[in-house]
């Protein structure tokens, strides 16, 4: 221990530290020694006193006016540094504001598009739900109609213009539901199509184009009415708004 202190004091670390010539690692070591060993601390104090004494021996009066120059410089520097600090803060503040504005705009934009998307998704879900409900209802009704003993089954055949046409309607007057299954359709020229109609309470209702003689299972709902009449006509491609009476290929009483 003693040797350690002696070695330390014999090295020139303390003198170097006194003059601020140490590296930061050395300074750290010296400060540790000073804090730990009173002997080192005393020597350091002594060195400091010596340095002051020695330096004072060489004191020299600086020229007059130097003090004023220095004080003036410090005052102006203080002023300047204040202004510089203000400018620094101003730059920092405007930069922050700019950044904030940018970020705000970005988030606002994102929020906006998310909201739009949200509305779109909601609408989609709603329409899907409706579709599903409709289909479910349809399937349920089909089931009811097909399984109900009160359901009448009517086979429809085409007239001269479409002899091969074959369809089956299912009518249930209790549940007030009607379905049709068009199982066979003769081919038509490309510029023509079959369209289905229903006369309900004296009004002609467009039931749409029959694209193909669908599969056996495909049932099409008919608007129910007592003693209603359905028609299948040949119309130009794309369908017609009113049926062309001379082109009726099948009458479907139901």
């Amino acid at each position, binding site marked *: 221990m003693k040797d350690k202190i002696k070695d330390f004091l*014999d090295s*020139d670390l303390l*003198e*170097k530290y*006194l*003059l*601020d*010539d140490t590296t930061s690692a050395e300074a750290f070591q010296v*400060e540790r020694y000073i804090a730990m060993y009173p002997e080192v601390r005393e020597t350091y*104090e*002594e*060195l*400091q*006193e*010596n*340095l*002051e*004494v*020695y*330096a*004072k*021996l*060489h*004191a*020299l*009066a*600086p*020229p007059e006016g*130097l*003090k004023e*120059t*220095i*004080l003036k*410089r*410090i*005052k102006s*520097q*203080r002023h300047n540094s204040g202004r510089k600090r203000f400018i620094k803060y101003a730059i920092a503040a405007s930069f922050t504001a700019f950044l904030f504005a940018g970020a705000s705009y970005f988030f606002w934009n994102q929020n906006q598009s998310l909201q739009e998307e949200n509305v779109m998704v909601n609408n989609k879900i709603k329409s899907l739900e409706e579709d599903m409900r409709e289909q479910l209802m349809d399937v349920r009704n089909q089931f009811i109609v097909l399984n109900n003993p009160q359901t009448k089954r009517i086979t429809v055949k085409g007239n001269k213009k479409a002899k091969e046409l074959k369809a089956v309607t299912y009518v249930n007057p209790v549940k007030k539901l009607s379905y049709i299954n068009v199982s066979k359709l003769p081919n038509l020229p490309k510029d023509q199509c079959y369209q289905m109609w229903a006369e309900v309470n004296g009004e002609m209702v467009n039931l749409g184009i029959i694209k193909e003689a669908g599969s056996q299972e495909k049932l099409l709902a008919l608007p129910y009415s007592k003693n209603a009449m359905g028609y299948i006509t040949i119309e130009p491609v794309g369908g017609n708004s009113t049926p062309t009476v001379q082109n009726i290929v099948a009458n479907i009483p139901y």
Partner: protein
Amino acid sequence: MSTLLEKHIVELLKERNEKAISLLYENYSDTLYGVAYKVVRNEELAQDVLQESFIKIWKKSDSYDASKAKLFTWLFRITRNTAIDKLRSVNTKSDKEIQMDVSDVYNLGVEGIRPEFMDVQENLEKIESKYQIVLEALFFQGMTQQEASDELDIPLGTIKSRLKIGLRELRKIYGPTMILALLLNLM
């Protein structure tokens, strides 16, 4: 151990009160100017150094740690480093060599010496010049001990021991007088 005046100055420095600089100048400018002059050996440069040092002292005032160094030690370090930097920036690399001349030790103008140190100044001559040269080289010329050893052609071990003895001698001879003078000066 610091005097009341030192404490007062340190407080003012922490408060960033410009009065601190005024007080520092009144009490330390002679010594610090002497240090600067010893290093740069040119009055104009020494004045620049003193100015720059005071500016640095002002700027760094919140970095002063009384537990690590006496106020003077801190002032001395700043001034010496500023002076050494000045010297380096002025000297071209070719004549970087620092003239070591014993007569420099006594190179002070008479009017530059403060009266309260007159007797001390006379006594300075009593320190053997071999110690003085080492003290000068290290304290003022900004040499490391190794550089002083090379420059003065003295083995490193001798430099170390001379530095120690020189400092001790200094204390032995001037200690009591000096402390009295310092006290009077600071009152």
